[in-house]
């Protein structure tokens, strides 16, 4: 195709190049040391501060030992439990249940959110119900689930699904709401009909909200699972982290209770850190939405 030479010396070519160079945004590189200082150090300091306050309360003997064990004691019992090896199956079982329940919630919540977000009548009918469900503490589902399914894995999973699906669906709905109408207009002009428009315009434009919904959905799934495991106890359900917590309560073992809570927290944080944080950052950054430093 005879594209004219850009005539290196000519004013228009140079002028454009100059304008582009002046206006285009430069990317600021950030080193590993800076990242460490900015995003790893502060949370570590916060944890250290909490531990210090805890230790102070312990030393001051605000409560007797068996009610408020010291951080060192809990650390010891945590190390002991990890070394003994019987918490690993508990962690494994709870995590696999949580992830399985979460994946199922994604598979159900995504089409649901897409339908509610794009079909007006459905939105008017189902939107408020979803918002209401999201506000309902998912522990409330445990008694009916147990009555319906008995103390079975099905009861646990149904609680997880009811906890996570509304968040995932509503995250997608709010993502869809934030799609600029101009994008849809451009998509139509480019020839994107219904499904092509959903695939090439609507979904990618709503992705940031959707990922936020996924993140929240995981939090709800994990919480719901723990609640269900604590309440619905049966040998047939094996030995999840919730069961471990219940066991600590029955034995009056505050050290074990604390160390189980720490484990539950760690799983939540790790999944967030390893899965959702990078996913969210990637989505935002590719759209030029994340700050350079995050």
């Amino acid at each position, binding site marked *: *195709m005879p*594209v004219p030479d850009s005539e290196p010396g000519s004013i228009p070519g140079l002028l454009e190049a100059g304008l582009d160079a002046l206006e285009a945004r430069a990317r600021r590189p950030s080193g590993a040391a800076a990242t460490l200082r900015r995003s790893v150090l502060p949370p570590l300091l916060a944890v250290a501060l909490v531990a210090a306050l805890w230790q102070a309360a312990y030393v001051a003997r605000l409560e007797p030992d068996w009610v408020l064990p010291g951080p060192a004691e809990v650390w010891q019992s945590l190390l002991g439990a990890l070394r003994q090896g019987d918490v690993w199956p508990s962690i494994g079982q709870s995590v696999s249940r949580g992830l399985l329940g979460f994946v199922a919630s994604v598979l159900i919540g995504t089409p649901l959110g897409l339908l509610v977000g794009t079909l007006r009548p459905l939105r008017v009918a189902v939107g408020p119900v979803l918002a209401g469900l999201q506000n309902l503490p998912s522990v409330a589902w445990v008694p009916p689930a147990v009555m319906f399914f008995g103390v079975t894995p099905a009861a646990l999973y149904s609680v997880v699904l009811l906890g996570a699906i509304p968040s995932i669906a509503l995250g997608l709905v709010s993502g869809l709401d934030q799609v600029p109408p101009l*994008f849809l207009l451009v998509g139509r002009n480019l020839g994107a009909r219904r499904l092509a428009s959903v695939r090439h315009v609507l979904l990618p434009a709503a*992705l940031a909200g959707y990922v936020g919904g996924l993140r929240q959905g995981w939090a709800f799934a994990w919480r719901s699972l723990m609640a269900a495991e604590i309440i619905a106890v049966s040998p047939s359900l094996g030995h999840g982290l919730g069961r471990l917590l219940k066991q600590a309560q029955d034995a009056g073992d505050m050290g074990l209770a604390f160390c189980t809570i720490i484990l539950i927290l760690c799983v939540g944080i790790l999944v967030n850190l390893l899965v959702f944080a990078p996913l969210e950052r990637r989505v935002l950054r590719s759209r*030029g939405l994340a700050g350079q430093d995050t």
Partner: protein
Amino acid sequence: MTIAPSTAPAVPTAESAPEPAVRLSSVTKTYAGPGTDRPPVLENIDLTVPPGGFTCVIGASGCGKSTLLTLIAGLDEPTFGRIDVAGGHAALMFQDAALFPWLTAGRNVELALRLRGVRRAERRAEAERLLALVRLDGARDQPVHQLSGGMRQRVALARALAQQSKVLLMDEPFAALDAITRDVLHDELIRVWQETGCAVVFVTHNVREAVRLGRQVVLLSSRPGRIAGRWEVEIPQPRRIEDAGVAELAGRITEHLREEISRHART
């Protein structure tokens, strides 16, 4: 048809009298229901843009300039009248480049090709050719948020050209740019228009811009939007916005525009 520069002169010859690129016959658009006295947005518009023509539509805010383009683009239906577009489809550009921020510059162009059914193997080369046409050869892999406003509009132009329509509709595409960038893009647009041979309908409220670019300038009145004047611009391209001829004609058209606008103060 391809985007290849037409070797034939873009000016229609008298003997062959080709089909116009765009023809509006008595087009009226009203958003009011029957019985209400809201004036139509557009009333009885007759407009013909020849193949390879360049028509600028000017008018005050709210005169229905943008509505006119959405009608030609087929995004809305006229209430009365008839619109014919060569090839049945017109590409549309806005003041906001509206590039998809999750795609690179090159992928934005490729998406347009893909939605048109161009095979994967050909998309990449074609997108590259189009980006070169708007002088953005180096920007293919850049995320669009790293591009300047002028570069974004050039990507949007490449994306519009990727649709291979015979008609390009532009809705104040340079209004948000600074004067120097706009000036550069005027040159670029004229060059691309001459190379591709597509017909352009260009909406602006900037009279000088209209005279700088167009072969024909159409003035729309407001409420109802009617055609209040037409001028053929005989000044040969390349023109500059500061040319005496451009300034003189723009001055005359501005007089009419002012009259149109002050009419609304009296009623």
